[in-house]
């Protein structure tokens, strides 16, 4: 943990000093233990404020969309899941690879502050860090050591690419890949009766407050003009009714069909805990079944399933 932090600060300082990049995107610490926010560093002397701890979860690649308008070259740090998102932006031709310098960070999983709070470890907590195979919680004058596996984000438990798939320079050694089965929740839902499933999703969608956090955080959602913002035609109304929520979520998920990198950010940022990964994974599962395995974000040169075809494709309806 400490070694990685030193590497991050050293690399950031050297690229800014040499003029190789005019902006470094990293993480900085907020006032509370669980707050690790994106940091935008332009001066070499500011690099001391960069941080690396188990809460550095925001994907920095989406900030490139705005920063590359004004910056010549941007250096940024990407974890495994972030690198998949970066590749998706690259495939959508929203970022120029030449203008980006990537430092890859192998990531063995990040810690969900809600799980820490549920375990009752948050009172007076100062900081949390990985030490060896253990998670060390530091308080004012004592320390607690715990097994990290019960504190990881849900999305980290099913992570298939903890080591970045795209980078200019890798900081640290590759970590072991040991994902849980990611389609388990989808399989459970598929076993249910269709109207039972409708009621399940009705309960989930009725909580939605349409804050659009899931859209804004998604590395595959990068349209300059989003249909949910259009006023003419107004596809999505402003009224707080279930039907509009359903329209929003079905459309959002379907726009990601074949392009979702399954980074799990949408479900993580949802303030009302809608299991959005199940929607995305259902589409990934079906498209893999019908039109061959495709892992979005891993090979940006390969064509996504919904923009190509084979004359002999199967169909999920009766063809006559």
């Amino acid at each position, binding site marked *: 943990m400490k070694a990685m932090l030193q590497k991050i600060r050293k690399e950031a300082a050297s690229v800014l000093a040499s003029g190789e990049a005019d902006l470094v995107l990293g993480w900085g610490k907020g006032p509370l233990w669980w707050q690790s926010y994106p940091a935008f560093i332009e001066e070499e002397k500011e690099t001391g404020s960069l941080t690396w701890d188990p809460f550095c979860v925001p994907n920095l690649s989406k900030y490139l969309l705005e920063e590359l308008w004004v910056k010549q070259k941007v250096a940024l740090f990407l974890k495994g899941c972030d690198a998949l998102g970066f590749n998706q932006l690259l495939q959508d031709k929203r970022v120029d690879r030449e203008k980006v310098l990537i430092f890859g960070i192998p990531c063995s999983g990040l810690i969900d502050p809600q799980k820490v709070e549920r375990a009752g470890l948050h009172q007076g907590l100062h900081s949390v860090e990985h030490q060896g195979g253990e998670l060390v919680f530091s308080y004012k004058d004592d320390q607690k050591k715990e097994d990290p596996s019960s504190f990881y984000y849900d999305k980290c438990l099913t992570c298939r690419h903890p080591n970045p798939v795209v980078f200019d320079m890798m900081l640290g050694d590759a970590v072991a890949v040991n994902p849980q089965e990611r389609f388990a929740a*989808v399989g459970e*839902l*598929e076993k249910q009766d*269709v*109207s039972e*499933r*409708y*009621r*399940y*999703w*009705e309960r989930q969608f009725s909580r939605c407050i349409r804050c659009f956090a899931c859209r804004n955080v998604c590395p595959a959602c990068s349209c300059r003009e989003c*249909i949910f913002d259009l006023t003419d035609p107004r*596809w999505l109304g402003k*009224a707080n*009714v279930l*039907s*509009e929520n*359903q*329209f929003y979520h*079905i*459309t959002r*998920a*379907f726009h990601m*069909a*074949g392009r979702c990198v399954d980074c799990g950010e949408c479900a993580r940022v949802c303030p009302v805990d809608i299991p959005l990964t199940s*929607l995305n994974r*259902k*589409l990934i599962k*079906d*498209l893999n079944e*019908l*039109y061959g395995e495709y892992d979005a974000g891993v090979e940006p040169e390969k064509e996504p*399933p*919904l*923009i190509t*075809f*084979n*004359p002999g*494709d*199967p*169909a*999920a*309806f009766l*063809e*006559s």
Partner: protein
Amino acid sequence: MSVVEEHHLFEPMIVAFCCNWCSYAGADLAGTGRMSYPANVRIVRVPCSSRVSPNFILRAFQRGADAVVVAGCHPGDCHYVSGNYHARRRFSALRRFLEFVGIETERFEIHWISASEGNKFAAIMKDVTDKIRVLGPNRKLRDVR
């Protein structure tokens, strides 16, 4: 109104998106050939089956459709060479996805109908209407305000 009465009065509303080059001409042939098919079908003419966005289908359900049919040229016959191949992939995924969020598969159908298949058009529309009559009115996704 009792459930029995409502069911008795129920007339399904079916929205059919028909491609201009095959299915719409097929519907036209059904008309000129004096074949009868249920008046519950509302046809929307689109340039190609791949012009149909999933939004159209959701909007139809929101505004009162009991079933949606997308009809296009047979694979290989597309006026724009590959439109219906793309439509096949897109609507296969959408059909399974709508079933996953709780919409019965009977309510969203895709058919290939050529310009010479007026009888097939009439038969499919009759078949869909009969199925929906049994299934009852659609309340899912409906925008009730």
